[in-house]
């Protein structure tokens, strides 16, 4: 059997292995991690014909340039991504949500995501990744997960252990819808903020800043004024919590967040809006809209149905 692998010619900005993440470790300080945009993660594996929780390469903004060495491999890219397949005699622009084949010596150049942040590369097959707590997901801060908990590096080899679906031509017509209104349930410290600031929070625009990564999204807008205490006794945090530190600028906690925090929580982004939130690049304008718990639960059911519906359209 030929040994198949990718050689990393250019690592891109923040390329990591991800799956659905790890559970039951918050109490020792380890967050979920896992793919940021879960729907696009699931679609990548569906299109590649993989099991639900298979490792994929997640990249942000600029993706990696990979050289494939081996016999052949089928792959799919999801998200809003520009990429090229470079063969000996020709170059081809790729489309997302479609199967492609790489042969020995071919290059896959993942140029960039556009109007979005994260994209996903799934191969029809398996990578040689190390699992920690049953997950390959890389958390670079704690250096946990496969690849020694580090982002992909130049010149490294990514060993492929198993391949399948070499001639597959799966395809999906899919457009990622954009979101400007992020729906939020009031947080447990909502009453720490002035009446005027509550109004600002649910009516004014906030801008996503460059200080945004897999841990958190820092926003800028009118200052949110705290009238009780800018600190609380440190307590647990979950994905989507919006904290307001002393400077009055909200931070949304994302998948690699610290598990405990001491800033007041003004709101929590609802589960159905998380995938779209994380795809907003710096400079995006957003507004928060208040919803009740029952609405959020219903919206999550709709989100799930929509995901199933999209998957059923794969040809």
């Amino acid at each position: 059997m030929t040994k198949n692998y990718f050689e990393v010619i250019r690592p891109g900005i923040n390329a990591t292995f991800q799956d659905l993440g790890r559970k039951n470790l918050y109490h020792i300080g380890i967050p979920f991690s896992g793919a940021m945009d879960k729907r696009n993660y699931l679609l990548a594996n569906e299109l590649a014909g993989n099991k639900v929780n298979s490792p994929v390469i997640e990249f942000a903004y600029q993706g990696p340039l990979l050289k494939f060495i081996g016999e052949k491999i089928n792959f799919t890219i999801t998200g809003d991504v520009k990429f090229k397949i470079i063969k000996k005699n020709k170059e081809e622009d790729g489309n997302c949500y479609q199967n492609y084949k790489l042969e020995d010596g071919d290059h896959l150049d993942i140029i960039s995501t556009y109007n979005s942040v994260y994209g996903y590369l799934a191969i029809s097959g398996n990578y040689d990744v190390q699992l920690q707590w049953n997950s390959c997901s890389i958390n670079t801060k704690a250096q946990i997960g496969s690849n020694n908990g580090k982002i992909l590096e130049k010149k490294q080899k990514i060993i492929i252990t198993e391949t399948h679906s070499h001639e597959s031509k799966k395809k999906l017509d899919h457009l990622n819808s954009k979101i400007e209104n992020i729906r939020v349930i009031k947080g447990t410290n909502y009453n720490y903020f002035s009446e005027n600031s509550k109004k600002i929070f649910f009516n004014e625009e906030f801008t996503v800043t460059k200080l945004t990564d897999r841990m958190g999204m820092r926003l800028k807008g009118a200052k949110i004024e705290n009238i009780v205490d800018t600190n609380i006794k440190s307590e647990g945090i979950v994905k989507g919590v919006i904290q307001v530190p002393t400077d009055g600028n909200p931070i949304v906690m994302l998948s690699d967040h610290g598990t405990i925090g001491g800033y007041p929580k003004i709101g929590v982004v609802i589960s159905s809006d998380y995938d779209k939130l994380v795809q907003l690049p710096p400079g995006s304008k957003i507004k928060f809209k208040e919803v009740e718990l029952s609405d959020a639960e219903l919206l999550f059911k709709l989100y799930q149905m929509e995901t199933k519906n999209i998957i059923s359209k794969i040809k």
Partner: protein
Amino acid sequence: MIKNISNLGDAALYCDFGTEVSKEINQEVIKYFKNIKEKKLEGIDNITPSYNKLIISFDLNITNFGNLKKIIENLEIKKFESEKGNIIKIPICCDKEFALDIKRLQEKLKISEDKILEKFFSKEYYCYMTGFIAGHPFLGDTDKSLRAKRLETPRVRMPKGSVGITEQFCNIYSFESPGGWNIIGNTPLNIFEKNNEEKPNLIGPGDTVIFKQISMSEYQEYND
């Protein structure tokens, strides 16, 4: 006892044990944590104990706030044999190069460096919770004369193993991270061992920590 259960977003329960911070209340939180963990309830993804709160996050595909709230409210809570937790000895070197904020504390607290260390090492510390970063323990309570606020500007990089104090608490940075506590020393021990999946964290909620001062040469021997 839980005073109130509310929702933190659409996928977590926020169990409130009151506003006070004490070992007694925290032991109650940990008792709930252990009981819920042992029951392996379907749909629960994470349980996070802290000083006086317990956050239970769940998979919205499997359960919801209403269902889980009922289950937690009707849960039979038993005592555990090992309620006391483990006793862990942690060596610390407080030489100049490690005690980054001792001079600042001396000025703020208006007591001598020696006195700060004497007071610090004369107590045992209780672990209220572990988290923020992997394996990082929140310990307490420090002597009343040692209570200072955080640094006005947090450090971007706290060296791994740094031992800090703030308000009535002390901590250990399990690896290099940003942080704002007043650093008085450094431990050569690995507080978090990522390759030990069974027990990666040296100190867990409910454990007791005894610090022991060591010299620079003893510190260096640990790393050999």
